[in-house]
């Protein structure tokens, strides 16, 4: 009697929970991932006696994640179309070499631009992005039109591009990079408190506008809409998340010594009690822009629709008149461009280009996409999932380093988590019958 009662209780509770997430129209998978992420953060915070969740460490965590996260968004498209890209780390190295050589050697020597010329960083970035796009397109052509499996094309690419980068720089470490260029790396380019709030508030308003618009659009077509309290709750959660994140980043103060040196460099004296916050790093802003653009492509454009349709059923896509070969070229081109953007962030963060930049990033990027729920069978994956995946991986790695876990054990844990995440995902999909 009592057992049936508890079962019934559990049943109604489960139903109520299902109804709540349904009402809010929140993806339960997303909820699970956020839960896992929060659990990782809390556990490490306890293990480090509160040192893990300080503004400083959160700041570091975000700037360390950017490079992998940017590439992971592109990897979602690659994996969704049933391909793989093993060359992203190597491609990052080639793009980074191109950007480094452009600003330190080629532009000054061949175009006669003096070092420190204001156009140098921008031309270097442009050259890197073009290089990444062209190499990506080439690999996409080999895959899509020449029918060589992407696994082989990019496995070859891993060796080719890693060492093309080496040739371009004759193996030297190139640095220091242009100061403007370095602003995309993280700590050397932040918005400061005021502009961080401006971006945060603008972002919040934009997110609320999107929510409001989609509600109005649904009403116009006479579809069911969420109850107004659910909309308000969702909006409040989003606002708190964005503004809370900005508040944390703004709580990270620039060290006094550094500020004093900056004042001295300008020949001024630092006023007593002067403080300055780092705020939102430009690299993180770049990641947010990439994430928004990629999400819009995925959900609101034909390109994105065709990427998912082709991943779900390549034959159906072709019979619907979709040029799946050209689509493959486009997907790999996007991946290449994102590798170049990541190269910018990664080399700017290190303030120089070295030959081993991006080594093993292909594995981190694929792992981030997969932990984020991208199915290797194709057709399923989200941009926010991949970014969350990258965050979870980076948190694990940083957290373990902070706790003082042995290096080999760190990798054993990360590897196990990857497999475990996929297992949980498989069980989840099986239970809910989704995917």
């Amino acid at each position, binding site marked *: 009697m009592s057992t049936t009662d508890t079962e019934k209780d559990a049943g109604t509770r489960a139903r109520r929970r299902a109804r709540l997430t349904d009402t809010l129209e929140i993806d339960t998978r997303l909820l699970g991932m956020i839960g896992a992420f929060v659990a990782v953060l809390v556990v490490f915070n306890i293990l480090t006696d509160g040192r893990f969740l300080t503004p400083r460490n959160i700041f570091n965590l975000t700037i360390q994640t950017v490079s992998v996260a940017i590439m992971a968004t592109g990897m979602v498209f690659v994996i969704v179309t049933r391909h793989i890209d093993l060359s992203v780390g190597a491609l990052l190295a080639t793009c980074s070499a191109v950007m480094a050589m452009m600003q330190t050697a080629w532009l000054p020597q061949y175009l006669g631009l003096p070092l420190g010329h204001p156009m140098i960083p921008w031309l270097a970035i442009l050259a890197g992005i073009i290089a990444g796009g062209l190499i990506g397109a080439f690999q996409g052509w080999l895959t899509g039109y020449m029918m060589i499996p992407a696994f082989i094309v990019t496995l070859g690419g891993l060796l080719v591009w890693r060492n093309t980068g080496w040739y371009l720089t004759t193996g030297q470490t190139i640095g220091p990079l242009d100061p403007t260029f370095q602003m995309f790396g993280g700590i050397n380019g932040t918005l400061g408190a005021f502009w961080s709030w401006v971006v945060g508030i603008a972002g919040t308003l934009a997110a609320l506008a999107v929510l409001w618009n989609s509600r109005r659009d649904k009403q116009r077509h006479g*579809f069911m809409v969420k109850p107004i309290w659910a909309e308000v709750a969702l909006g409040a959660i989003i606002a708190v998340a964005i503004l809370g994140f900005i508040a944390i980043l703004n709580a990270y103060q620039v060290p006094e010594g550094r500020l004093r040196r900056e004042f001295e460099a300008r020949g001024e004296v630092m006023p007593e009690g002067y403080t300055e916050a780092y705020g939102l790093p430009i690299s993180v802003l770049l990641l947010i822009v990439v994430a928004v653009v990629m999400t819009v492509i995925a959900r609101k454009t034909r390109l994105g629709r065709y990427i998912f*349709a082709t991943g*779900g059923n390549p*034959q159906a896509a072709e019979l619907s008149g979709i040029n799946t070969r050209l689509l493959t070229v486009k997907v790999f081109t996007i991946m290449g461009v994102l590798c170049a953007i990541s190269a910018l962030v990664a080399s700017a963060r290190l303030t120089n280009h070295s030959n081993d930049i991006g080594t093993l990033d292909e594995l981190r990027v694929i792992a981030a996409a997969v932990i984020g729920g991208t199915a290797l069978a194709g057709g399923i994956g989200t941009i926010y999932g991949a970014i969350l995946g990258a965050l979870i991986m980076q948190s694990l790695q940083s957290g373990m380093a902070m706790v003082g876990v042995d290096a080999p054990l760190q990798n054993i844990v990360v590897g196990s988590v990857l497999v475990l995440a996929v297992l949980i995902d498989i069980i989840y999909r099986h239970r809910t019958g989704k995917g």
Partner: protein
Amino acid sequence: MTPLVEMRNISIAFGGVQAVDDVSIDLHAGEVVGLLGHNGAGKSTLIKILSGAYKADSGEILIDGKRVEINSPRDARAHNIETIHQTLALADNLPAPANLFLGRELRTMFGFLDDSRMESETRKIMARLNPNFKKVAEPVSALSGGQRQSVAIARAVYFNARILIMDEPTAALGVHETKMVADLIMELKAQGLGIFLISHDTREMMSLCDRVSVMKNGQLVGTERVEDVSEDDILSMIILGKKAPEAV
């Protein structure tokens, strides 16, 4: 009267195999023509040439008496030829509206996908074709065979097909759903569409079709009006590859 579609002397070979060998068939508006034959007889291949999935080695296609070139599924659609493939050709991971409009998405004035309008159009047409259809927002992998079939049919009907090709439309369906598809075929026929129907089920073909064309080993055995022949005659054409004596 000029036929809606004429396929004349169509041949296609894959490697050394002559999959379709000098076959001619035609279809009039408001008519259902069935294609019968064993597996590998060449029915699906012949029809895929009309739907643009394959290109014939020789022969010509005429629509309304005018010669046309069909080199891709897009070309076929441009001539109002819609195909419901044996494999249904649905992207399982996408919901019904995305599948219905795949390759012909409705867009907003900024060029973005207009999902709300596509959803509302889908609801409208599904209300007509299959009133039980409710799962508009879920991936089609969550749908039953009949519901999936109605998505495939809706896709063909929505875009004002004049020529409809149905390859085994009832193969995966239960009795009730088969009846639903049969009713739909009759309705579309009454609206003046020309329909090519491929099936293994001779009895079903006898009841749905006006004429049947029988193929064997890539060649056309013959085309008969269903009222002129018995089911046994058709079976002997399929099996023996020649017309039964009494039908000659």
